[in-house]
């Protein structure tokens, strides 16, 4: 019977001790510990979420990079093609122009030659005329009659004539 009769002293001390323990631990130990634990859990779940989000973002970035690369490649090809056609065009037009120019130059040259030729012919004609007159004059001066002497004279004149 003694065993199951609560003793007054022990009830008193147990109540006192437990009350004080409840107060002290509740205020200075469990509160901060529980707060720290829930804070840590929040931190972990936040970090996981962040990691997940980052991963998804990275995937999106990679996909867009791929797209960009593809686009760039296409762009480059297009540019190359344009450049090539442009080059062809430029070369073609340059060639054409050069031909044109050449033709023009040749034509001009021809024209100039013709002109010069005509001029020269005219001069030649004039000179020949003057010469003929000169010769005729000389012949006339040397009296007509000396066949051989005249021939020599004429050839002398012709030799002296400087056909410029």
């Amino acid at each position, binding site marked *: 019977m003694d065993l199951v009769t609560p*003793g007054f002293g022990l009830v008193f001390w147990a109540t006192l001790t437990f009350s004080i323990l409840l107060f002290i631990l509740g205020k200075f130990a469990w509160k901060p510990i529980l707060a720290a634990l829930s804070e840590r859990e929040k931190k972990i779940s936040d970090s996981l979420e962040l990691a997940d989000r980052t991963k998804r973002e990275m995937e999106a970035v990679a996909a867009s990079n791929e797209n960009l690369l593809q686009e760039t490649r296409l762009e480059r090809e297009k540019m190359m093609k344009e450049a090539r056609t442009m080059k062809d065009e430029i070369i073609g037009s340059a060639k054409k122009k050069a031909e044109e120019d050449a033709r023009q130059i040749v034509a001009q040259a021809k024209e100039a030659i013709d002109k010069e030729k005509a001029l020269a012919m005219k001069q030649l004609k004039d000179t020949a005329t003057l010469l003929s007159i000169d010769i005729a004059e000389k012949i006339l001066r040397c009296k007509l009659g000396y066949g051989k002497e005249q021939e020599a004279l004429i050839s002398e004149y012709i030799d002296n004539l400087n056909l410029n």
Partner: protein
Amino acid sequence: MQSLESPAHKEFTFLKPLRFLLVSFIFTTFFGVSAFANHPETAAGEHATENHEAKKEKFKPGETILEHVKDAHDWHICDINGHPVSISLPVILYSSEKGLECFMSSKFEHGHASYNGYSLDKNNKIVAEDKELSFYDISITKNVAAMLIAVIILCLIAFRISRAYKRGQLVPKGIQSFMEPLIIFLRDEVAKPSIGDKKYMRYMPFLLTLFFFIFFNNLFGLIPWFPGGANVTGNIAVTMVLALFVFFISSFSAKKAYWIHIINTPGVPWWLKFPVPLMPIVEIIGFFSKPLVLMIRLFANIMAGHIIILGFFCLIFIFGEMSAAVGYGVSIFSVFMALFMGCLELLVAFLQAYVFTLLAALYFGQAIEEHHHEEAPHH
């Protein structure tokens, strides 16, 4: 990282036994060790002869066991040549006639002497020689002292880990990693499901204190002698106080629905309530039996554990009385069985603390439940 932290760790492992010794030292000096030195020569001589006579008597296992599981005014460690070696504890008595009286229990000389008109009776209880005198015995008994030691150590550990968390050390280390799973277990497996996600936080400090108080006292009870060996949680006074805490907290935080449930249980045919109030009677019995069951379960479990282990040790002496050789032979079996029981008691120490806390949480949950449905009555 590791090298950086190792000095602090070394300091901690070095400090731990130091702190323990310090606590023990304070207690022993405070309570005072009573060995032979405390006794006058004549008393010691008297003692010896008495004990000698006692030795001739037959070994009484029942008495021995009860003596060990009951509270005492001194902390008995062992007997040397028939002299009890024990730590003397303060006796505090209060009576309206004589006021407050404090003296060490060594004054009683283990029940052989009376002091200030008080003496120890056969049950190790203080009785006044003046039969008329009514007094309150609020002595620091063995159980009180053991409880205080357990509480101080619990406080040291709890403050240590709370400091660690406050410092921002969120990854547990050392004793922190022992306590943390228990705290999280109590929060997630006991408080949250029993009380509900919204209100469990209000009861967490109480539930944690309750659990660790019981758990630590259970564990200290398993240490054979000082600072353990006392049967704190196997004492009905302690379990009664704990059960009353649970009872009052659940009653004071109870919502209207809880009282209605007791007086006019919903979902029960009217004829169970009206002419003869059968349901209310059952409910009211349940209301009071809940804390009673808490009290008795813990008391009986821990008490039984202590008694079984002591029983195995008593076997040695029972057989030893027949012949020394049989005693030695039985001791092998007894030590083995006591070891086995000790392991079982470690489990029980946790289990009973858990069960007590779980039931407390369930009672709180029932008390604060806002509305009862059909699934509510489940006792």
